[in-house]
């Protein structure tokens, strides 16, 4: 970091409103040359809006931008960010799956350059190899992007963005690039980011993952409700301080888990001999009111378990015992599962969990439509009133049931889904990545709600997640998968984030040398 040089980019007094809501309220932001600068905040705090103003996607109400000390007029024209030396990697990466790595890598140049009579693919291929080599990335330029592993896709998107940066290093904006990546992939990505910073590139790293921000950034700016709460030096700031800045209050302590007690309660549910596409012969038991986490490395099969138990993916074999009733898993359908007292909150809220264009009330009521149906008529007024009450009960904000579901922030969407399913009073709640894209404040509320419901109603919870910290916080017991099988169980205090990570890798390592647990 050079103190004398002007900031790579400086934003002053940036404001933007949507309707009556102020999404950005006089935000200042300086990113220094060669600095990795974190931008933290809950969902809805204004991070995305800020990025989109910088990309020229939104016109701000007011504010100034200077690049390397020289003022640049806002708003930027679409595409102008390139000429002022900025480059973006958005969360969806902006890759075209059906095209090759090479085509994706060169798309900007091929589309934007002077008309050429002919593209020399041989030369382009050689250049791509050389580029990947420079960044220490090994990707076959001829592979289809759809066939790449998630980490390779991430690396490709970042390499492409860095290639577009100007000679002085420019500014690389990474908008939640790690959301769908496993830990080891994140490390590779971070190595790339550090290299870039060492060569003078400034990086704006947008995330709500505190650990990642603490690991990679030099300084952090925190946004809350569209206001910049402050900029701090990462290494001098304690994690709890950052959390307080993000949510504007101190974290309430989670109610303590009582693992020993959970294990003494009777067995309420068991799975025997479950086989499916990615899992082989899985059996486990859950005690009454117990919260069991299931995890593993990517591809270990754990992520399939909730869907197999729910009948959403078809199992090849297996039995589910729930209380006195037994179900043949290959024949189970979601509607039969619901009748049996199961509920599933899928990880893909946008496609599996909800219809964004329909009102919140209708999304929530879908699980209990028959409750509002008399012989002929749907009691719409009662439905709207009771769903509104339920939303307040689950702290879904805003609590207007007529709002389209898609207008809620990620955390509130998930609270609404939790409300949708907990109102059915399930005996077994299946969760898949329950806090993906959920801000830290809402995460706590969701955990607390699940805890309390499990304790008070004796509901069993099976939670698939690759967020080890989350599992350690939430679960009474964590089952670790390796290559489609149960590898190990960690009970209560044993289930720390470090132990879980260690065992996930152990499960993988053991199998590569042929040892089966």
């Amino acid at each position, binding site marked *: 970091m050079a103190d004398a040089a002007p900031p790579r980019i400086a934003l002053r007094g940036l404001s933007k409103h949507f309707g009556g809501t102020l999404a950005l309220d006089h935000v200042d932001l300086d990113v220094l040359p060669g600095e990795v600068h974190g931008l933290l905040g809950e969902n809805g705090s204004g991070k995305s809006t800020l990025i989109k103003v910088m990309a020229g996607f939104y016109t701000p109400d007011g504010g100034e931008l200077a690049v390397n000390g020289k003022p640049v007029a806002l708003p930027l024209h679409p595409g102008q960010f390139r000429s002022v030396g900025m480059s973006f990697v958005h969360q969806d990466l902006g890759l075209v799956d059906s095209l090759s790595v090479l085509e994706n890598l060169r798309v900007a140049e091929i589309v934007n350059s002077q008309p050429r009579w002919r593209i020399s693919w041989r030369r382009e291929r050689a250049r791509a190899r050389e580029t990947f080599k420079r960044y220490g990335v090994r990707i076959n330029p001829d592979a289809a992007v759809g066939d790449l592993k998630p980490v390779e896709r991430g690396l490709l998107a970042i390499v492409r963005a860095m290639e577009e940066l100007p000679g002085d290093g420019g500014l690389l904006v990474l908008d939640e690039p790690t*959301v769908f990546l496993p830990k080891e992939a994140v490390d590779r990505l971070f190595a790339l980011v550090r290299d870039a910073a060492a060569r003078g590139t400034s990086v704006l790293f947008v995330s709500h993952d505190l650990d990642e921000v603490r690991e990679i950034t030099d300084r952090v700016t925190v946004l809350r409700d569209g206001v910049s709460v402050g900029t701090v030096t990462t290494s001098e700031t304690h994690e709890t301080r950052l959390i307080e800045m993000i949510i504007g209050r101190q974290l309430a302590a989670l109610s303590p888990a009582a693992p020993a007690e959970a294990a003494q309660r009777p067995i309420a549910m068991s799975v025997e001999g479950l086989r499916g596409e990615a899992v082989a012969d899985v059996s486990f038991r859950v005690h009454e009111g117990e919260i069991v986490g299931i995890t593993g490395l990517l591809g270990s099969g754990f992520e399939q378990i909730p869907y197999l138990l729910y009948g959403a993916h078809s199992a090849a074999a297996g039995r589910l015992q729930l209380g006195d009733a037994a179900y043949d898993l290959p024949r189970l359908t979601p509607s039969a599962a619901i009748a049996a007292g199961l509920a*599933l909150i899928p990880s893909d809220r946008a496609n599996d969990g909800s*219809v964004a264009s329909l009102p919140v009330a209708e999304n929530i009521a*879908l699980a209990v439509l028959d409750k509002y149906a008399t012989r002929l008529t749907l009691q719409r007024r009662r439905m709207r009133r009771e769903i509104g009450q339920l939303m307040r009960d689950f702290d879904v904000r805003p609590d207007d049931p007529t709002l389209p579901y*898609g207008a809620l922030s990620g955390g509130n969407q998930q609270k609404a889904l939790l409300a949708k399913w907990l109102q059915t009073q399930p005996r077994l709640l299946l969760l898949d990545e329950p806090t993906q894209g959920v801000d830290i404040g809402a995460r706590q509320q969701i955990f607390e709600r699940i805890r309390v419901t499990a304790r008070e109603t004796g509901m069993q919870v099976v939670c698939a997640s690759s967020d080890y910290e989350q599992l350690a916080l939430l679960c009474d017991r964590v089952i670790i998968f390796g290559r489609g099988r149960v590898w190990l169980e960690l009970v209560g205090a044993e289930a720390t984030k470090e132990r879980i990570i260690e065992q996930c890798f152990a499960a993988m390592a053991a199998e590569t040398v042929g040892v089966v647990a």
Partner: protein
Amino acid sequence: MSIQPRKGTAPGAQESAPAPRRSRLVDLTERYALLAVWALIIVIFGALKPNTFLTGANFSTIFGSQAVLVVLTLALIVPLTAGDYDLSVAATMTMSAMTLAILNVNEGWPLGLAILAALGVGAVIGAINGTLVALLGIESLIVTLGTSTFISGVVLWISNSNTISGIAQPLINAVVVNRILGIPLEFYYGLALALVLLYVFEFMPIGRRLLFVGRGRSVARLSGIRVNRVRWGALLVSGVISALAGVLYAGTLGSADPTSGLSFLLPAFAAAFLGATTIMPGRFNPIGSIASVYFLVTGITGLQLLGVQTFVQELFYGGALVLAVGLSQLARRRDAPQGE
């Protein structure tokens, strides 16, 4: 689903700026713009041609003659709401009319029985469509394109490509001859059916299930809705209502011909999609569909009275379909804010 008529895409995990709430005025404008434009064109044509356009006889013709199209449009919006196309509605209608005519005229069946048989044929066609689409998982556009052509062939075959006339008078009386307030009874049949569908869509749980199956199939399935059964049922209902349109068509003409009914397909789609931009914008809805049918017909009739040639009909329906789909896309995009 590559050709879903309207599938909500949702913001993913990224944060979305709060959706701006629209003012009531904008909301009302969107809802009733079509009705206002309709009123406006009536005033314009009325001023230009007061002696022919602004007559009871003209309006009676407009309302009566298009009841068949109204019923056919209503048949269409059921599967459209469930996310499936039914391109076979017009062919089913023709088949139904022809079945009625053959049984009633050539075979001498009593009228009531012939009508039941015609409706039964519609149910069978709907069930076949539903089975191919929902159980075998074939794209509805392809299935109904195929069955539509197939049925048209069957109609030509059983009728020897002839028009069959001489349908029993009671049907003709009940459809076009008898009138209330000067408008043929068939108009009221269409209206009644629209009210029934409105009730089903808005006030019965099955209406909600239909809507969720159309907007988010995976969501519906994971919420315990038997998606395939709903889609199957929607196509079955579409077949039966199309057959009902066929009965009205036979009653209107007093005969059945093997081809003229097929030209109803595009107007029905135009009215269904245009209907989705009004009354309840963003959703296929029965009242909007009726309003659209009469809006389009009023425009066409007015232009024809002004002496514009008959090709204006094609221009009007074709243009309206594309415009309506464009408008409903816009409404949908607004309904699903994509992080702004």
